[in-house]
């Protein structure tokens, strides 16, 4: 492949993102390259998958785009997550592949020239109508017209995302509010259809840009797209619960991986004997005691001062959603002082209500409204110190920024001694710890583990640790930490 490309014209690097190295014509090399891109995104596409894809393509006609895509998806993308990445990549790749060929062969398209004769009002009405009905073909045509109509005004900013929003604003396309999902009201448009139309606009603009610059957009990695924690304080809890649903199912089956290690299992004599009756009293098969998952008592302390509110409210609601994984869960919120908020989380179902009730009812702030960690430890020890025992786990979520006040680390240490385990989750990246007024280092020695926690993945790993199934990397950090603190 590399030889072939070397024979050809010297590399043409465009100003936009350049053209990929040309590959041998035909489907197979293109598919190989596609698989390469999938692998770069972290999908595990092996030779076996690739062979399957080729075998499967033999069985269907390639004229239907949907079928073609489904066949590739069924053979190459083998989880829902993979599937999501696959779709994003599929559209980009085959769009680019076609456009690359167009540029390669110097094909010029007769672009629609009558942009100045389009009646904007008419176009607006047509587009709104098409989106409301969700007709794909019409939407695609109208997207072309809209791009042409805007092209004439020379309004293109060169940044596709900006242009899409500008066109959308001018066309007055409003999406319906999330409150009125039931009946499509007159004002707003269906969110899903509007999103599709935006995608078409984006495609049109991209195509125009490719033609102008003679090069393809640079390939950006997709995988880390929306994997961070949802942080908007007013987000629906439903979204949080969707994040949690997966985590919950994994937790529900936790411990299964460990079952293979027979040596650490305990023989259940009674069941073994009973089973041996079948074989004339010869115990042919041993029966083991099932392993019970650990269900800890948990105390969560959450900083709800303005700097970390969204992260902590999210975190607390995750824990509450996972309630059945724990024997007992009590949550506390603090800023300057600390107060119990368990009941608020059990009642309310939206972030907004929770935040409002915490602000209204919990006595968390006093005079200044700045976090005072030292005072919080003193109060916490006074209120629940007697309830703590070696089975309980204390989790603190906060940025450890004391605003220059006394950290009372020795009090923190006393709490740590009373409780069985103590974890600290910091919503800031590790890089920022101990800079400014952050006193993470003062508390770290008393914790069984400190974690940065700002993506769902980190959160899931952490929940795994708490609920007793150590995942490898975390387990080793834990061991290292225990070794250090002795």
């Amino acid at each position: 492949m590399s030889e072939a490309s070397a024979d050809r014209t010297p590399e043409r690097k465009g100003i936009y993102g350049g053209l990929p190295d040309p590959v041998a014509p035909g489907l197979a090399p293109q598919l190989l390259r596609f698989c390469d891109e999938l692998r770069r995104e972290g999908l595990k596409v092996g030779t076996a998958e690739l062979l399957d894809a080729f075998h499967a393509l033999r069985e269907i006609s390639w004229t239907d785009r949907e079928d073609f895509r489904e066949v590739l998806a069924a053979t190459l993308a083998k989880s829902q997550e993979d599937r999501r990445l696959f779709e994003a990549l599929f559209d980009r790749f085959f769009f680019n592949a076609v456009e690359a060929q167009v540029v390669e062969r110097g094909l010029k398209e007769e672009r629609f020239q009558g942009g100045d004769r389009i009646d904007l009002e008419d176009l607006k009405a047509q587009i709104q109508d098409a989106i409301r009905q969700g007709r794909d073909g019409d939407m695609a045509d109208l997207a072309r017209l809209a791009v042409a109509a805007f092209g004439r005004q020379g309004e293109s900013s060169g940044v596709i995302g900006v242009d899409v929003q500008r066109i959308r604003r001018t066309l007055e396309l409003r999406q319906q509010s999330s409150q009125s999902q039931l009946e499509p009201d007159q004002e707003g448009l269906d969110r899903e259809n509007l999103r599709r139309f935006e995608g078409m606009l984006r495609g049109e603009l991209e195509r125009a840009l490719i033609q102008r610059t003679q090069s393809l957009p640079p390939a950006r990695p997709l995988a880390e797209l929306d994997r961070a924690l949802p942080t908007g304080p007013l987000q629906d809890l439903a979204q949080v619960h969707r994040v949690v649903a997966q985590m919950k199912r994994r937790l529900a089956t936790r411990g299964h991986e460990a079952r293979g290690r027979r040596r650490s299992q305990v023989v259940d004599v009674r069941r073994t004997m009973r089973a041996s009756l079948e074989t004339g009293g010869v115990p042919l098969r041993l029966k083991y005691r099932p392993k019970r998952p650990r269900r800890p008592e948990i105390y969560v302390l959450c900083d709800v001062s303005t700097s970390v509110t969204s992260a902590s409210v999210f975190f607390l609601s995750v824990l509450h959603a996972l309630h059945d994984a724990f024997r007992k869960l009590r949550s506390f919120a603090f800023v300057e002082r600390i107060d119990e908020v368990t009941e608020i989380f059990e009642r309310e179902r939206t972030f907004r209500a929770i935040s409002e009730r915490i602000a209204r009812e919990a006595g968390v702030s006093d005079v200044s409204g700045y976090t005072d960690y030292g005072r919080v430890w003193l109060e916490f020890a006074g209120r629940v110190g007697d309830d703590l025992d070696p089975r309980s786990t204390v989790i603190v979520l906060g940025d450890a920024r004391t605003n220059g006040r006394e950290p009372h680390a020795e009090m923190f240490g006393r709490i740590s001694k009373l409780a069985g385990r103590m974890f600290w989750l910091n919503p800031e990246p590790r890089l920022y710890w101990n800079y400014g007024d952050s006193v993470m280092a003062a508390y770290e020695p008393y914790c069984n583990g400190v974690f940065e926690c700002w993506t769902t993945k980190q959160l899931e790993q952490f929940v795994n640790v708490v609920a007793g199934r150590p995942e490898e990397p975390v387990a080793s950090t834990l061991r290292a930490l225990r070794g250090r603190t002795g």
Partner: protein
Amino acid sequence: MAEDADRESDPQHHDERCGRRPKGRNHDEKGLQGSPSIIRAMSEAHQEAVAPASLDELGAGLGGAGYLASEPATLVSFLAYKLGKPVLVEGPAGVGKTELAKALSRYGERRLVRLQCYEGLDEAKALYEWNYRKQLLRIQTEAAGTSWDDVQEDIFSPAFLMERPLMAAISAKDPVVLLIDEIDKTDQEFEAMLLEVLSDFQISIPELGVVEARTRPLVILTSNNTRELTEALKRRCLYLWLDYPEIERELEIVSLHVPELPETISRRLIEVVHMVRGLDLKKPPSIAESIDWARALIVLGAEDIDKAVFERTMSIIVKHRTDLDVVAERVGVRLAEDVLGRAESR
């Protein structure tokens, strides 16, 4: 030994052991004789079974079997037929994963062999098990006067083997549909054991040899995604993600199963079900529950889904106490508004 020689030459017996390769100590003596019996009639059997010629044919066939498959589902089932690969079906509970396998079995007139997975499922329950009691009896009744060789030969023979689902699917004379339901409920070792079955369609029995499939079963594995399946298993399967159907398709499904319900009501019903699924619930209603609800409405003779009817019957689609509260609050109010709105517009 004389008896053994008899067996090999006896054509009837030969048939029965077809597909079972003798192994171990006896293998050297009988290797040459035994090997022809490995040749299986797989290709013949493949042609005998009903196999779809085109995508549309399969889609229509599944429809005829009472299953309105989505396009991806039809396509992947078609590939499963053509490539002879297992299909891993994932999706939320109640979207018709198991139903797909049943429909394929009805469509292809294949027997459905079902292996329901659960925690702690092991080989003895899934593959085969030696019938210990029968073996013990055999040893005891013949204890006197028989040599160890003869007894061993006898007790590890097919007569003492209890077939479990996987074995049954593999050794069936006619092609079957093998449904391995909720594979995510088992542990990883079990998955590893499945690999041999899924890629080579054979099972090794240490005492007996390798049992190979006479016909290639159509294998459907379902998973509710409670845990990540191993890469090795996924590699051997085609992947199908089933989600809740869109309104139109679900409407078709409901009217297929409950044709008595007027279309206006069933449309309304599906709209409400979709609305309920959009809420943040512990257990969103499945397709089966939509159908149940439609049936209940017929029994009740309801003419419209208004607030009163909904409140009386919503326990059919919502089965969690906290969910009931949420649904009653959000959907009930909405329905009331709706009725008012429609009354005004009239």
